[in-house]
């Protein structure tokens, strides 16, 4: 049997005394779109950071296609791509240079043709030689997505890619996500827009105060709660959990 693309086993993450993730176990399978939902501060970014190398879990293990993210980090990082929540850009380099550099950093021989293709895909070819700081917010966001794809990751994380993004760009991004999935990439995304998850995701996980309240396929979730929207189901779960925490 093929191992899942992502397997988190009993992952706990503490920042000092604060526990951001509590004994979290999760599997994500090849070719699916997995949406991680949860209120601000639930630990969505923390989980993604532990998987992608920006943070280290305090306990538990994480595997990507059977490779441990700590022991075999060189292998897992080649397999994983990340679009971080915060926009960042290097003021020293143009979009074309940024893509070429990122390719090299990911261990792929820099390939100008591939960089130019990515710029075209994300409608950045006119800005390829501009100072990155002169790009609009949406363009910078698209550049981040392009950068995360330079090494053709098998597993792509999109951490709130649509926060503060206009409708048009949001549509484009989701189209791109669907194209990537069609090409075989497994996708994990976090979003605040629950209706997006409802439309896109194959499976949904709801994270709250560092614990997974639920992991279920969208279909069975909506079937179980016939006639109700994902948003209603989500809010009810969060309220129940809050009540439990308060008690």
């Amino acid at each position, binding site marked *: 049997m093929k191992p899942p693309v992502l397997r988190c086993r009993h992952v706990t993450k503490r*920042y000092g005394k604060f526990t951001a993730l509590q004994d979290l176990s999760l599997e994500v399978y090849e070719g699916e779109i997995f949406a991680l939902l949860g209120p601000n501060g639930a630990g969505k970014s923390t989980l993604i*950071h532990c998987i*992608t*190398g*920006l*943070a*280290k879990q305090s306990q538990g293990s994480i595997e990507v296609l059977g490779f441990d993210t700590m022991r075999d*980090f*060189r*292998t897992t*990082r*080649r397999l*994983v*791509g*990340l679009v*971080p929540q*915060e*926009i*960042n*850009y*290097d*003021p*020293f*380099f143009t979009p074309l240079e940024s893509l070429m*550099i*990122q*390719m*090299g*950093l*990911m*261990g*792929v*021989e*820099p390939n100008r043709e591939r960089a130019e293709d990515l710029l075209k895909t994300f409608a950045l070819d006119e800005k390829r030689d501009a100072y990155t700081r002169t790009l609009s917010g949406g363009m910078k966001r698209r550049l981040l997505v392009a*950068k995360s794809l330079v090494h053709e990751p098998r597993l792509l994380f999109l951490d709130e890619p649509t926060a503060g993004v206009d409708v048009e760009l949001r549509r484009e991004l989701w189209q791109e996500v669907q194209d990537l999935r069609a090409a075989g990439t497994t996708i994990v995304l976090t979003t605040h827009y629950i209706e997006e998850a409802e439309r896109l995701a194959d499976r949904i996980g709801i994270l709250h105060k560092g614990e997974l309240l639920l992991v279920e396929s969208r279909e069975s979730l909506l079937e179980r709660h016939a006639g109700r929207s994902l948003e209603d189901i989500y809010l009810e779960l969060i309220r129940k959990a809050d009540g439990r925490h308060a008690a």
Partner: protein
Amino acid sequence: MSTVALKTLFIKEVRRFSKVWLQTVLSPLVTTSLYFLVFGVALGSRLREISGVPYIQFVVPGLVMMTMIRDSFLNTSSSLFQSKINGTITDILVAPIGALEMLLAYVGAAMIRAMIVGSLVYLVALTFTWFPLHHIGWTVFFAVFVTATLAMLGMVAALWAEKFDHLAIFPNFVLLPLAFLGGVFYSIDLLPEPWHTVSRLNPLLYMVNGLRYGFLGVADVSPVASAGVVLISFLVLLGVASALLRSGYNLRS
């Protein structure tokens, strides 16, 4: 180890400082040349010899070493700290790049910058006072190991620092005073006790005097003793910098 990643990170770091060469190469060259004009040329015409060489020549290796110390420190510290602050360090942290590649790339680029500035200062000095290098081997040894050491110190400082003020402590309040007191402009043999002995506790004294021996064949300390101190500093910083990078200190939360 990924050689493509190492090469890319190294070239990226070299391009980073060459894109702003006015600030990273020309500015230290001008500042150091001004020191040379004021102290070496103007004052040197009044002063006689020091340690048996004309003063105008005596200050050259000191100034070259002072700028190389500063430039190698500044290159790694500002690059790493800036990418920590603007978030572009993410690009490296998600990449299959280990502590060793990071160290080699950052330190290598900083050494290139420091050597370029150092060589240019020497060339400027040559137009005023022609002298060949006394001992190429020692010159290269001290240039290589001192710039590598200071570049690693710059990385450690950038990892530790949480704001720009923290970072500015080093060049202004540590490196510059220690370089001055390490005999850039004078021989510590001219100092009365206890300052003569106190000066010997300053590691930068050995860096300055090591290069002075390579350039001129004269120094307050034997080149072997200088090499010993420089090698120990190098090994200590190699240990600290690689341990911090490996543990992800202030990089991977």
